[in-house]
């Protein structure tokens, strides 16, 4: 600070900084000297910290950042924490492996453990398509209702999660194929219109053209009933949906159903045994079963 604007505050006898706001002046009180020493100490600390802890980023030719004498690494720390959590859970986890799914569901302790780990695994892996809480989305079945394409039993759900649906790399995957009636030239457009009228009528919709519906019923009996059944109630062994319950995976509007018949859908779900361990899959099965559709 230059000498020429040194201003002394009269009541206190302390120099001011020369700054003034509406007549209020800022006193330039000296800092306590130990404050300065603490600042020096923080600088000394930072040098020690750089030696002990990872500090310098990767430099050209060095490959990685400096590791420091302590060898601290967040990656290793996370791995250790995950490992310690695993070992903490190993007792309940082992119990999950040995118990049957029914036993897990009826044992309060095991059920709560499976529900907790199943919920978090569902959020990480399944909710992307099936939605939070299994609410479903167009093209992805709702898991919280009582309508199942394949099965809603505990073992069946486990099987589906393990091997997936139409996951061709897995020999045990659930598989079926609906023909693309329109695209592959099996039915004319007019015929498809007729079939769609009939299919919509199965769940109690009113149909405008009764003659068209009647023609559609004949085509349905010839082409669709093999899998979906004469009454349209579906067949779970081939994953053919029940067409009478007004629950539509791919949408229940006229155009949606037309599109389904014309192009077929044949949706795909990966086999999760490739990515998740058995314990997690069991927990997921119990969790999905509890969402409301469990049979």
């Amino acid at each position: 600070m230059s000498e020429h604007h040194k201003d002394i505050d009269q009541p206190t006898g302390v120099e001011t900084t020369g700054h003034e706001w509406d007549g209020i002046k800022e006193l330039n009180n000296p800092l306590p000297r130990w404050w300065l020493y603490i600042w020096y100490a923080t600088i000394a600390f930072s040098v020690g910290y750089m030696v002990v802890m990872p500090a310098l980023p990767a430099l050209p030719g060095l490959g990685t950042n400096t590791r420091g004498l302590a060898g601290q690494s967040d990656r290793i720390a996370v791995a250790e924490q995950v490992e310690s959590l695993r070992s903490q859970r190993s007792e309940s986890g082992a119990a999950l492996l040995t118990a049957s799914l029914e036993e897990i569901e009826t044992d309060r302790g095991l059920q709560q453990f499976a529900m907790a780990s199943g919920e978090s695994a569902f959020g990480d892996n399944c909710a992307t398509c099936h939605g939070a809480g299994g609410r479903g989305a167009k093209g992805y079945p709702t898991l919280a209702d009582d309508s199942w394409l394949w099965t809603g039993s505990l073992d069946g759900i486990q099987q589906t999660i393990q091997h997936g649906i139409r996951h061709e790399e897995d020999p045990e995957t659930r598989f079926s194929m609906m023909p693309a009636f329109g695209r592959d030239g099996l039915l004319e457009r007019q015929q498809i219109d007729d079939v769609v009228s009939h299919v919509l009528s199965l769940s109690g919709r009113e149909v405008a053209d009764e003659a068209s519906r009647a023609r559609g019923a004949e085509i349905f009996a010839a082409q669709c009933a093999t899998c979906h059944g004469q009454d349209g109630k579906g067949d779970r062994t081939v994953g053919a949906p029940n067409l009478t319950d007004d629950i539509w995976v791919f949408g229940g509007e006229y155009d949606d159903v037309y599109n389904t018949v014309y192009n077929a859908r044949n949706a795909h779900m990966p086999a999760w045994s490739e990515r998740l361990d058995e314990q997690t899959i069991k927990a997921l099965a119990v969790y999905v079963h509890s969402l409301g559709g469990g049979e």
Partner: protein
Amino acid sequence: MNRVTLISSKSPPPAPPPQDLYAKRKQIYPKLAHGKFRTVKWIAMAALLGIYYLVPWLRWERGVGVPDQAVLADFAGERFFFFGIEIWPQEAYYMAGLMILAALGLFLVTSLFGRVWCGYACPQTVWTDLYIWVERAFEGDRAARMRLDAKPMSFNKLWRKVGKHIVWLIIAFLTGGAFILYFHDARMIAQTFFIGEAPLSAYWFAGILTFTTYALAGTMREQVCTYLCPWPRIQAALTDEHALNVTYRYDRGEPRGPHRKGESWEGRGDCIDCKQCVQVCPMGIDIRDGAQLECIHCALCIDACDQMMKKVDRPTGLIAYDTDVAVARRAAGLPTKYRLIRARTVLYSVLMVAIAGLMAWGLLNRGTFEVNVLKDRSPPYVRLSDGNVRNGYTLKLVNKSGETRAMTLEANGMDGMELEVVGIEADEQGRITLPVASNGVDRYRFFVTVPEDAADGRDHFTLLLQDTATGELHGNRTSFMAPGD
């Protein structure tokens, strides 16, 4: 010195020599005071230290499986125990309430009597007082300490200094050690601590508090108040001209000057400029300069001055608890008036009574059982294959008692509604009974299904839980979502 001078009784000082950027600390040698405020401070110190060191050792019987320590913050068990009161994590608002009460209490006492907290009850003041007492025991009073510090090192000086620091460190360790007793079973941790089996956090906190006690009460002292503590800055907003502060009554003291025995007191003030008030001050200030940021209102200068006034046969109270208004009025020849009941003191008192009453009401009326129903947000509702509409819920049952319970569950309020709990079978009469563990939270998932035509948009139903043993009834009104508006 950063000093807020409200009333300046001195003429402007001469221009000081050029200032250094950094100030060296001036060692303060407070002299021992004798008098009623010193006595009050000794008693306050003994009581506060006694509470701090002894409370963790008090026991309070609570039953099997629950800690029997009267005051305990049990982080592992997620409970806070205070004699007959047990606080769960979800009741942390009692802690917030306690802090609001403490803050308002501080505001109230500051607007009435100034910085009573700083002067008598602040840990910084209490432990500094204790440390100065130790210092005095080893090195003597003010004059002896100043002489000792001026002397070169000798055996006499060495053992006094070393002895003082050892006792300081022991007190510091006892302070840090007592702190962790509040977070663990005191008898257990007092043993495991010394054989190296206490949790690492216990050693950390004991170490940190040992260090801060030694550093803040031993070496930092008044600098904590002037440089580190925000309270001296905040108090300016809480005190006013009607607050009873430790005040030099300049109306009576000025003009000051030395007085010889037998001289007349005519035409002069009562202050004999003996500087006793400065010598006893633990903050190293002169109270006669008026209200100051550094002053912690410990009232030791009152004791020192009263003693001198008695010696020279003048009335005591030249320095006393007084208000700016009273001093100014007397100086102007007007009668003094004190106003303890003011808008702000009434406001603080009313708020304190209201909050304390609310907390007491809450504590007295809280039960040992709580029902919380969380409705699934995703999906908000599910349409089943038969057209019925179903909602999913999570039921949380909080049982704060030491006994397990069995609660029957039923739902009323919507036509044709059906209730189903995951993992629980209804008995022959269709009754659902839920077991609830003691001292914990039990969760159940349940579903409510309503016929298609009974549900439209948002509806409500009531969940009824009844204790099968005591008949105690709990209800919870919950919403039901269905398609529609």
